[in-house]
């Protein structure tokens, strides 16, 4: 399967529970959520909108065709969350899933997040330092997968 044949459907619905006009206000966390569709068949040019370390990680798993289907950047307050809707499988047209990222705590260098996929259900609490990325991989068929990269900006 080639990623170029994937229908460019809208995958993401962004909802910020608590949003304010000033994105750089103190106590807020700049969250970046990237939805990546990857395949071990075919080949694609270097994807844009995703960090090199994530691409390197995917390539280490044998994925040669990597495409960024959506990229969200949001400023989220403490105990607020951002939800991203994505296609559960690269060739799935009907079934959608929701990724919910909640900011539990923001310290000077440490950001605590709760990352959940309510429909599975999956939930994890993570601690990020200096812009570390949490990558959730949802396996598909035919050696395809959807990756959800969550990175709080330092």
């Amino acid at each position, binding site marked *: 399967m080639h990623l170029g044949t994937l229908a460019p459907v809208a995958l993401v619905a962004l909802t910020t529970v608590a949003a304010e006009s000033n994105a750089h206000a103190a106590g807020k966390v700049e969250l970046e959520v990237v939805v990546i569709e990857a395949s071990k068949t075919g080949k694609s040019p270097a994807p844009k909108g995703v960090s090199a370390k994530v691409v390197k990680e995917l390539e280490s798993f044998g994925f040669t065709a990597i495409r960024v289907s959506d990229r969200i950047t949001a400023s989220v307050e403490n105990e607020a969350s951002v939800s991203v809707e994505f296609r559960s*499988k690269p060739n799935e047209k009907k079934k959608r899933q929701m990724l919910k990222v909640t900011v539990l705590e923001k310290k000077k260098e440490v950001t605590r997040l709760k990352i959940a996929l309510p429909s599975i259900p999956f939930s994890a609490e993570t601690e990020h330092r*200096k812009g570390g990325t949490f990558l959730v991989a949802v396996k598909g068929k035919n050696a395809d997968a959807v990756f959800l990269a969550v990175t709080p900006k330092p």
Partner: protein
Amino acid sequence: MTKRQDDKYIEASVEELLTEDAAQEIAQREGEWNAFTSAVFARIDEEDLGVARMPMEDQAIDLFRQEVAGELADLAPRFEEGFKEGVEQRIWNAAREPTVMDRVRGFFDRAFGERVGWSVGWAGAMAAALAIVTITGMPTEPGTQIAENITGEVSVKSLSFEGTVTVMPNDGVTVVWLSDDASS
């Protein structure tokens, strides 16, 4: 008047007495003075005699020492002049030594031969320098480099999933694999 004559007699006697005493005193002092002078000259003569009577070996050593001191005093200006000339000669020789450019030129002359000429060698050197800069790349801005090197860390404090999950922590990226059956 008689009294006056008596006074003259007395005065004459005193004068005579004083004259005689003065003459005696002067004569005595002159004698002493002559004796002192003669004593001083006699002492000097004794020292000369003492020097003249030094052993022949000591006299030879003293003369040799005086000659050496005289020769050194005569040669001192020559030493200073020679040292100065030596330093100036070394400075002149150092100035005449080939410079770095002369050495580079000599290297290309030897490498490409005299026929090629200096212009070709210089062009080759410039081409080599440009190639090195191109291969190694120009230095990047420090801020960009630091930003690229930030990898960060992620630690998973708790995890909840009903299916099979595989956590793969790596440098800056932590990957959580969810099994296909559970996620479908």
